């Protein structure tokens, strides 16, 4: 993998080697496109490799449910290679207002196709004796589970090689120019040429779109995840909270992963985010409240990852407004679960095929001028 010098003229260059970029690149290559993927660090070093790995239909947005169900199936197919486990998932309410909220939202998600049932406190206690007995209501989905997100990079490295995608790791795209209808990606190892590009660079997407003069209203959240040392078995299911502010699971090696979208501090430009004690401590208290035995386990590591979003919190997935042959994919909430599937759809769109499910046209955020250009 030494030397990046690359004089090929590609059909497609994908910028970013997270789940989104990798899955789309594989689909495009399998559809016959000569494809290159450029990753500034290592494959899966962004959100895709540091996320909490929860594959829970209960926490997916209603409109994204069909995508989540299909993404979930793809992770199940990956199986041991990504540490997939279907454990079932419980979402807990400890107060009456939480129970009300749970009942309403889970009814909507059930309607959208997730096989969710409600459980009484007695049923919850029988299923998971390690949970706090103050549960007033819970929802349960047998499909829910988790995978080991730190294996994302290794997993996709193998698939990309198999699909014949040329991969440049530890190489950043520093600028994008156009010449004779092709894109020229400026990198430290020289220019890389391609007819089409896909911007799939997670938290860094806004800056890369700006290289083409496109301004998208992308903001970045800094999510915190914590993990304990190995401890004796205390919970088998993936545990959530009616507010969505807790995810918790015990891995087969005994470690317990705690997340829930609690916010750290920092910007993608400065590198990794910073853990904020107050935010982390609330997350840990919530976890300990749900699973009291956690109090005696030791926290081994806490980290953050960048998760971008747009104002409506739906994905950016489609043509980049105003720039022919450029595409963008990201800002997918629950993107670990949905990524392998929506990445495929994106690959199909780039191949000129009709995607099996509709994508999420970024033109909804483009200024009118760009929208006009995009429709021509």
């Amino acid at each position, binding site marked *: 993998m030494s030397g990046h010098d690359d004089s090929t003229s590609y059909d497609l260059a994908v910028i970013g080697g997270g789940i989104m970029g990798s899955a789309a690149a594989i689909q495009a290559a399998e559809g016959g496109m000569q494809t290159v993927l450029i990753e500034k660090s*290592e494959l899966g070093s962004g959100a895709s490799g540091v996320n909490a790995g929860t594959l829970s239909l209960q926490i997916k947005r209603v409109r994204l449910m069909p995508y989540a169900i299909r993404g979930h199936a793809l992770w199940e197919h990956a199986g041991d290679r990504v540490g997939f486990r279907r454990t079932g998932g419980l979402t807990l309410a400890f107060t009456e207002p939480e129970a009300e909220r749970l009942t309403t939202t889970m009814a909507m998600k059930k309607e959208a196709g997730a096989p969710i049932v409600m459980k009484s406190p007695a049923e919850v206690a029988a299923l998971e004796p390690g949970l706090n007995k103050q549960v007033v209501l819970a929802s349960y989905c047998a499909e829910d589970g988790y995978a080991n997100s730190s294996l994302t990079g290794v997993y996709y490295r193998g698939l990309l090689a198999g699909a014949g995608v040329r991969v440049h790791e530890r190489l950043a795209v520093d600028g994008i120019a156009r010449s004779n209808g092709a894109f020229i990606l400026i990198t430290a190892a020289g220019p890389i040429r391609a007819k089409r590009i896909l911007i799939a660079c997670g938290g860094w997407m806004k800056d890369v779109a700006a290289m083409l003069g496109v301004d998208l209203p992308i903001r970045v959240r800094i999510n915190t995840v914590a993990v304990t040392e190995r401890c004796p078995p205390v919970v088998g299911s993936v545990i959530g909270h009616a507010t969505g502010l807790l995810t918790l699971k015990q891995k087969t090696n005994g470690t317990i992963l705690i997340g829930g979208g609690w916010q750290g501090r920092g910007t993608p430009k400065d590198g*990794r985010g910073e853990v904020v004690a107050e935010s982390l401590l609330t997350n840990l208290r919530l976890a300990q409240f749900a699973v009291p035995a956690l109090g005696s386990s030791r926290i081994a590591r806490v980290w953050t990852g960048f998760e971008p979003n747009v104002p409506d919190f739906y994905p950016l997935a489609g043509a980049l407004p105003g720039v022919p042959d450029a595409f963008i994919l990201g800002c997918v909430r629950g993107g670990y679960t949905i990524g392998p599937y929506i990445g495929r759809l994106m690959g199909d769109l780039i191949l000129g095929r009709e995607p099996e499910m509709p994508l999420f046209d970024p033109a909804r955020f483009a200024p009118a001028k760009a929208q006009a250009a995009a429709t021509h």
Partner: protein
Amino acid sequence: MSAPDAFDLAVIGGGPAGASAAIEAGRAGLRVVLLDEGRSAGGQVYRAPVSGTGASSGQPDGAVGDRLRADLAASTVDCRFDHRIWLVERGFRVHGLGPDGPATVEAPRLVIAVGAQERHRPVPGWTLPGVIGLAGATNLIKSQKILPGRRVVVAGSGPLLLLVAASILKAGGELAAVIDANGRMDWLRHAPQLMARPDLVGRGAKWLAAILRAGVPLLSRHALRRIVGDDHVEGVVAGPVTGDWDPSASGEFQIACDAVCFGYGLAPATETTRLLGVKHEYVPDMGGWRAVTLPDGSTSVAGLYVCGDGAGVLGAAAAALQGRVTGLAAARDSGHANAADAVERLLPQAARAGRFGMAMTGLALPRDGLLSAMTPETIICRCEGLRRADIDSAIAAGSQTLNGLKSATRCGMGPCGGRVCEDTAAALIAQHTGLSREAIGQSTSRPPLRPVPLGQLAGAFNYLDLPMPEPAPQ
């Protein structure tokens, strides 16, 4: 959370570097807080003996340590021992876990003086009970007055080798052999820099004389090939090394023993500086990766200073001098102009002590031939039980940075936080790929800096009072 205590300067680490920095900054007029997880000041080298095992005075190190503790006690510094620092936020907020639970202090300036960690190069059998690190052995003998075994082999490189061997003899223990990867020529090559501190050279010569007088075999240019025993150390197999310290090239022999003290020098403890985004560089003669500092201890992060072994392993004498310089620099930068002259006056002394330390650290640095003693079955990452074969195959499959290897194999994800295995893992990546240490990089540092019990962090709370933000749209 109640409002944290505010100071002008916070110092993490009460070894010679941190304690000296705190004392000087306090004298110059700053309100200083000093935090250390130990019971008292002194750090690794001047560690006070556990109570009941006798006074430390009487030994040269003990006297220096006692003086440091007395100076600190007489100073205005607010000392908080038994405080394990688990997170530092920029700005700076230092979060500790003390005897009364979580404790946070705040200061616009921060000195990090957290010392060094041991460097290992595994051999088959190194995880057997009875094997301990050289640095760990100094603790055991000095602070707890315990001998590592009845008949001990001391092996590895650098000054700790002689120190541990001499301490064992002094405490009445039996030494089976001292096995030094360096030869006489290696030591001589460093003689000019060593002469910067003839007093310290004299001390080393005394250790050496004691070892020879006791008739202990001193095997120069030798290294361990493996440690043998079923459920405890029963002996070591050693052999002569090549110039690259490959111990498997020619004949081998066995030495019976029931304990092994084993190590290849020290490396700066960089987890705190990495966490805070300080710029680092790889300098073998300072122990490997170190925070980049100016001679006055300042770093690429405003208000943040690093001194002592944590900024480069230069030994106790340099650490104390650097600490003084750094404490004064922090005072100077806080507007105490009179401290500026003192900084300039001390810099040459600190530099001289640093040259001596660098020669010692250079001597201890492991060479790549040692990797050939590791068989495919040899454990590299102890916490996760990863063998060399596991690491090798992940590297071959494309994990060529420490972060990449960590994701692929969990190497360094256990309770030790990578302190034991990562340097060896990096050496293996370098050997496979020819990449530089800079390209292989450091792993990302994650809090907590030390494992902490969740319940102690969480403390007492009321569920209904937890500040819950508005949930995301469904």
